[in-house]
C-alpha cells in the first residue's frame, strides 16, 4: 500500500497543484507537504513487496538517494515559493518526484526503471517552459528533451542487451551494455562531452527548473547505476571495461575543467564545473569498489547541494527568475554580500576544494582511482585544481567589479536565510562527514557484488 501511495501521492497532488496554480501559496504548500509526506513514507518503507504487478525490492542505496532527492526538492519548492516564481513549476516538480520514486521502487526490473528515469527527466522538462512565446526557453527545452530521450534510449538498449547476455553469456554483450549504461549516465549527469544541453539550460531556463534537472535527476542517475551494477555484477566484472569506464570519467573531469577555465560567464563556468564534477563521479562509480562507489554517492549528493545552492544564489541576483547576465552580478559584494559568500562556497565546493561538501567524496574517488592507476588520480586532482583556479578568477572579478548600473533586485529575507543554511550545511558536512560516511558504508556493505 505504501508503495502505491509513494507513487500516486505526488501525481495526485501534482494535478491539484496545476489546477490551483492561480493560488500560488496553496499550490506551493500542497507541494511541500506532499514531498514531506513522501520523505516520511520513504524512511519507513519495507524492503520488499509489489507495486502494480511489479516486484519491488527497494535497494538500500536507492532509498538513501530517494530521501536526499526529496529533501532537496522540498528546499527547491520552498525557494520557488519565497521567490514568487511561476506556480506551474510545482506541478511539474511533483510529477518528476512521482516518476523518480517509481524508478527507485522498480529498480529490480531495470528496463521498467529506465523507462521511469526517462519519464522523470521528461516531466522535469515541463518546468523549462513557463510561458508561451518564450523562444529562448523553447530552444533550451528542445535541446534538453532530445538529450534525455537519447539518454533513456541508451539505458533501455543496455537492458535489452543485458537480457540477451543472461541467456547467451557472451562477454561482448556485457561490454556493450556497460558502454550504453555509462553513456546514458553521462548524458543524464551532463558529463563532458555529453554536456551539450547544460550550458544553455542554466543560462536560459528558470533557475528553479534548472535546479530540478541538475540535482534530483543527477542523483537518480547515480542511484540507478549502483542498483544496476548490484543486480548485474557482470557489467563491471571485466578489468578492461572498468579501466575504460574510469578513463571516460577522467577525460570528462579534465575536459570539463579546461572548458570551465576558458569561460568568462559565471553561468557557463557553473555548467562546465558540473560537467567536470560528473566525470569524477563516473570514475568513482566505474571503480566498482566500496571506496569509489561510496565516494561517488557522497560526491553526487555534494554536487547536487552545491549546484542547487549556486543556482539559488544566481536567482537572488536576478529579476526574472532566470540566470542573470554577468553585469547584474557586478557589485554583488556591496548589494548582497551573503549571496556572494554562498556563491563562493557553492563554486569552490563544486571544484572539490576542502572544507566543502564535495571534498570528502572526491577524496574517496581519488583514493579508489589511485588504487587502480595513480595517473588517473593525478588527472582528477589536476582537474579539481583547474576548477579552483577558474572559480577563484571569477570570484576575483566579482569582488573587484564596480557597482552595476542595473537596479538591485528585491528579494525576500527567507530566501537569503535558506541559502545561508545550505551554505552552512555544505561546510558542516565537509568538515565532519563521518555520520554520512558511516551511513553510506553501512548501506554499501549490504552489496556483496562490490570489491
Amino acid at each position, binding site marked *: 500500500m505504501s508503495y502505491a501511495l509513494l507513487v500516486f501521492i505526488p501525481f495526485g497532488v501534482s494535478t491539484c497543484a496545476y489546477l490551483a496554480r492561480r493560488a500560488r501559496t496553496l499550490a506551493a504548500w500542497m507541494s511541500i507537504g506532499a514531498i514531506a509526506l513522501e520523505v516520511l513514507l520513504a524512511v519507513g518503507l519495507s524492503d520488499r513487496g509489489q507495486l*502494480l*504487478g*511489479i516486484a519491488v525490492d527497494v535497494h538500500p542505496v536507492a532509498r538513501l538517494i530517494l530521501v536526499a532527492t526529496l529533501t532537496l526538492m522540498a528546499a527547491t519548492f520552498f525557494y520557488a515559493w519565497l521567490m514568487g516564481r511561476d506556480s506551474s513549476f510545482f506541478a511539474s516538480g511533483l510529477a518528476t518526484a512521482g516518476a523518480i520514486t517509481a524508478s527507485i521502487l522498480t529498480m529490480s526490473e531495470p*528496463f*521498467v526503471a529506465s*523507462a*521511469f528515469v*526517462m*519519464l522523470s527527466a*521528461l*516531466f522535469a*522538462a*515541463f518546468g523549462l*517552459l513557463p*510561458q*508561451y*512565446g*518564450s*523562444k*529562448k*526557453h*523553447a*530552444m533550451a*527545452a*528542445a535541446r534538453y*528533451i*532530445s538529450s534525455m*530521450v*537519447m539518454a*533513456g*534510449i541508451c539505458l*533501455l*538498449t543496455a537492458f*535489452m542487451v543485458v*537480457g*540477451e547476455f543472461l541467456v547467451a553469456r557472451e562477454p561482448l554483450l556485457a561490454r556493450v551494455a556497460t558502454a550504453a549504461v555509462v553513456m546514458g549516465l553521462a548524458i543524464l549527469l551532463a558529463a563532458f562531452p555529453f554536456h551539450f544541453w547544460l550550458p*544553455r539550460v542554466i*543560462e*536560459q531556463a528558470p533557475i528553479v527548473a534548472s535546479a530540478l534537472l541538475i540535482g534530483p535527476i543527477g542523483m537518480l542517475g547515480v542511484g540507478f547505476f549502483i542498483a544496476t551494477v548490484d543486480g548485474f555484477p557482470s557489467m563491471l566484472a571485466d578489468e578492461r571495461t572498468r579501466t575504460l569506464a574510469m578513463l571516460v570519467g577522467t577525460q570528462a573531469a579534465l575536459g570539463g575543467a579546461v572548458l570551465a577555465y576558458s569561460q568568462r*560567464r559565471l553561468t557557463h563556468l557553473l555548467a562546465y564545473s558540473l560537467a567536470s564534477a560528473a566525470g569524477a563521479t563516473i570514475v568513482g562509480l566505474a571503480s566498482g569498489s566500496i571506496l569509489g562507489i561510496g565516494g561517488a554517492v557522497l560526491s553526487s549528493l555534494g554536487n547536487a547541494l552545491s549546484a542547487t545552492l549556486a543556482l539559488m544564489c544566481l536567482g537572488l541576483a536576478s529579476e526574472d527568475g532566470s540566470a542573470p*547576465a554577468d553585469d547584474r552580478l557586478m557589485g554583488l559584494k556591496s548589494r548582497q554580500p551573503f549571496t556572494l559568500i554562498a556563491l563562493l562556497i557553492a563554486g569552490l565546493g563544486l571544484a572539490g576544494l576542502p572544507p566543502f561538501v564535495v571534498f570528502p567524496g572526491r577524496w574517496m574517488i581519488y583514493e579508489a582511482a589511485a588504487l587502480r592507476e595513480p595517473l588517473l588520480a593525478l588527472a582528477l586532482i589536476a582537474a579539481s585544481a583547474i576548477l579552483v583556479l577558474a572559480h577563484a578568477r571569477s570570484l576575483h572579478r566579482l569582488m573587484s567589479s564596480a557597482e552595476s548600473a542595473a537596479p538591485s533586485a528585491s528579494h525576500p529575507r527567507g530566501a537569503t536565510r535558506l541559502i545561508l543554511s545550505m551554505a552552512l550545511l555544505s561546510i558542516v558536512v565537509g568538515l565532519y562527514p563521518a555520520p554520512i560516511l558511516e551511513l553510506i558504508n553501512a548501506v554499501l556493505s549490504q552489496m556483496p557484488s562490490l570489491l
Partner: protein
Amino acid sequence: MVITLAFLILAIVLATASYNRPVALVGLGLHYVATGVLLGEAAGIQIGLERFVVGAVVCAAIWLAIAGVPVLKAPRRLKPIVRANPAPGAGGTSDIQAPPTAPPPDPDQEAAEQPRQELATTPFFRLATIALCLIGAVGLAQNYPLAGSGEQAPLLNFAWYSLVIAGAFATAITRDPLALGIGLLLVFSGTEFAYAVWTAATKPNLLAVLAAIHLVLALLISYLVRASVGPPEASPEADKMGDAR
C-alpha cells in the same frame, strides 16, 4: 508483412521528409498503425492495440497544438546557415544608423534569443538521405540482427533499424520543434519495437509506462510548438476590457 513494411516505409518518408506539418503528422500516425500491425503479428495482439490507441492520442495532442501554426516552407535552394537578422525597426540592421541609446547587446545573449534558420535541406536532399538511411538499415538488419527469430526476423530488424536511423536523422537536421519531436518519437518507437519483438513482453504495466513516455513526449512537443510561435493574441474586446479596468 511485406505490405505492412512498405506502408511503414511510406510513413517514415512522410514523417521525416515533409515540410508540411499536417502531412508529417499523418506520416507519424501511419507509422503507429504500421508498427501496431507488425507488433500485433510478431508479439501479440494487445501490443498492437496499445500502439493504435497511443498513436491516436499522440496525433490528436499534436494536431491540437499545430492547428493555426503557420506551415513551414521548403527552401528552394541551398543556403548557408546564418543567424537571422531582426527586421529594421526592431533593433536590427537598417540603411540609416540610429544613434546608440543603450550599451551594445551581448552578441552571445542576442544569438541565443534569435531563432536560427532551418538547415538547408531541400526536399530532394531529405528524400535522398532517407533513402540512404533505409539502405543502411537493410545492411544493419542483415549483419546485426538483434531482434526476433524465424523467417520474419530480417523484416522486423529492418523495421526497427529504419525507425531509429530515420528518426535520428530527422532529429539531427532540424530546429523545428515539430520535426524534432517526430524524430524523437520515431527513435523511441524503434527502440520499443525492438524490445517488444526481442522479448515478446506483454506486461500491461510495462506497456503503460512506455505509452506514458509517448504521451508526455507528445505533450512536450505540443508545448514547444506553441511556445515557438509566440503568445496567443488577445482579442480587441479583451484589450478594451483591460483598459477600462
